[in-house]
């Protein structure tokens, strides 16, 4: 169903602001850059997922393609600004600040299919929907996001978040708020042990587990009883963060701030009633790109695999293993070999075109890439997918390549952050957007950007304006 614009005579304040923003942005764009030419086509384009990637593509293609039949498959009426969840779970934002209705972003002329996709028949160019119906496509954009696999941690469910001292920033808007409450409860206890975990798979916003540790440290320090609290960070690999400088910085800062680091452990089970967590030692050489690969290594019993450690906690921050959604994993579009096999969408990480189905493109969290599961990556990927899809429709060579740009405003305490931007090349070298902000320095300006500027920037990306 397409979105219809409301009667202008009944504009409320929010609509007025939206229209003002859109008009202002359009004016700025018109004044400062030339628009890409529209293409006339009757192609059927299906976009799976209305998150950051899917919505940005719907808006871009609705503007760029004249006559195309674009369908956006998105069951949720609400759009969640997920980069804000760390601020919610840190007690800085209210949960409601991250939610907006999807009607605000779905462009006119796009058919919004309000139900989930359940399958992809890539050979016959068909997407299956939850009501049993099917959508045929000429071109497909997979922007389904990823799946949180809490079930791979024995005893853990997302419903536990907020109770029994369990927090998890990833489990949704309300869970982020409950995580903040659980931290408050722990701080109010006046002491005890907090465990912060990381997952042995690629995760969205890979900095979030680190940010949660840093902001919790801020809250403990603000309580005036920091010394009464134990903090541990359990990492499945040797690294804590992909970008080498930041990895070393975080390790050093954890050491200075009294966070005990334990490497090569993954959270394998949890007993909420007893407040005990079981960690599996995954071997000294463990650097994994997929849960599949990790399990394989564990089951082969290489190194010291299978050694279990059970520890008690007063608060634990759980980061679940993540993968492409099950219906993508069950399709022909999933990677068949390499580090992402069986877990992530098989795309060329530069052109974002599927490696075996040229009419399929991927964007956002679902793609098999060494980094890039952030909204900032979507900002960089969306113009690439747009240009390359348009070229594919015209039978031309793909003109743009994604350089792997991703950004993580690494919050190192409530009130300060590092604006970390990097890409695939030169061992994840920095790609700073602003020459006057050094990605290696903590700063107030980077914090203000995270707190005040990135959400508007995100909405500009959704609307295809940035």
């Amino acid at each position, binding site marked *: 169903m397409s979105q219809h614009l409301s009667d202008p005579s009944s504009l409320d304040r929010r609509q007025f602001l939206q229209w003002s923003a859109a008009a202002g942005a359009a004016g700025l764009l018109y004044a*400062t850059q030339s628009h890409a030419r529209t293409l006339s086509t009757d192609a059927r384009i299906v976009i799976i997922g209305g998150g950051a990637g899917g919505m940005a593509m719907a808006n871009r293609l609705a503007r760029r393609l004249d006559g195309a039949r674009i369908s956006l498959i998105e069951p949720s009426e609400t759009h969640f600004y997920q980069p804000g969840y760390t601020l919610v779970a840190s007690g800085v934002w209210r949960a409601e600040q991250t939610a907006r209705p999807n009607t605000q972003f779905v462009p006119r002329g796009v058919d919004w299919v309000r139900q989930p996709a359940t399958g992809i028949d890539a050979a016959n160019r068909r997407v299956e929907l939850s009501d049993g119906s099917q959508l045929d496509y000429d071109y497909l954009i997979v922007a389904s996001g990823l799946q949180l696999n809490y079930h791979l941690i024995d005893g853990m469910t997302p419903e536990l978040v907020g109770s029994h001292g369990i927090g998890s920033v990833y489990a949704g808007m309300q869970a982020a708020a409950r995580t903040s409450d659980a931290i408050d409860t722990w701080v109010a206890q006046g002491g005890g042990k907090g465990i912060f975990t990381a997952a042995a798979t690629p995760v969205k916003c890979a900095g979030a587990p680190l940010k949660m540790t840093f902001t919790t440290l801020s809250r403990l320090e603000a309580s005036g009883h920091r010394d009464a609290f134990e903090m541990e960070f359990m990492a499945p690999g040797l690294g804590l963060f992909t970008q080498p400088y930041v990895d070393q910085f975080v390790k050093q800062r954890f050491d200075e701030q009294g966070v005990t680091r334990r490497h090569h452990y993954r959270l394998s089970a949890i007993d909420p009633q007893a407040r005990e967590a079981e960690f599996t030692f995954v071997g000294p050489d463990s650097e994994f790109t997929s849960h599949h690969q990790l399990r394989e290594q564990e089951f082969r019993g290489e190194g010291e695999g299978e050694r279990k450690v059970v520890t008690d906690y007063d608060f634990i921050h759980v980061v679940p293993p993540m993968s492409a959604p099950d219906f993508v994993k069950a399709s022909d579009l999933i990677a068949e070999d390499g580090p992402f096999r069986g877990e992530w969408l098989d795309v060329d990480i530069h052109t974002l075109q599927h490696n075996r189905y040229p009419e399929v493109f991927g964007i956002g969290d679902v793609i098999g890439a060494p980094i890039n599961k952030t909204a900032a990556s979507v900002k960089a990927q969306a113009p690439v997918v747009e240009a390359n899809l348009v070229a594919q429709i015209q039978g031309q060579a793909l003109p743009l390549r994604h350089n792997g740009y991703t950004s993580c405003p690494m919050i190192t*305490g409530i009130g*300060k952050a590092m604006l970390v931007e990097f890409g695939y090349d030169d061992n994840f070298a920095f790609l700073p957007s602003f020459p006057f902000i050094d990605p290696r320095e903590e700063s107030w300006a980077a914090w203000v950007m995270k707190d005040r500027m990135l959400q508007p920037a995100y909405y500009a990306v959704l609307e295809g304006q940035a």
Partner: protein
Amino acid sequence: MSIAGVLTILWYALAPFLWLIVAGLALLVTIQAVAHLRGYRLFAYRCLGANLAALAVGLSALWWIPLLTRSQLAYIATVFDWVALLAAVFGVMLVAWLLLHPLSFLLRGAKRDAGSLTASP
């Protein structure tokens, strides 16, 4: 990031506060206009109290701007942090002066009028 990108994002960031910016500007223009109609001239009128008050408001921003951004002065660390904060402080000081300076003129005028009324037979 391109200038167009920066401007677009700035526009999105400011859009929810347009009403506040417009209201603030309207207040500023109104006070300036009323004062001008009553003989106020920006650089001809001298008032040490208004100048000091504007200075105090500006300097207080060193404390409340970081607080408003849920941070603290201790976290102003880089050169760019200081440039941004001092620019904001100067902006606050300027706006405060543009408001307080004509206001003091109007208040003095009102007092003078009240005095002349009291003194008249």
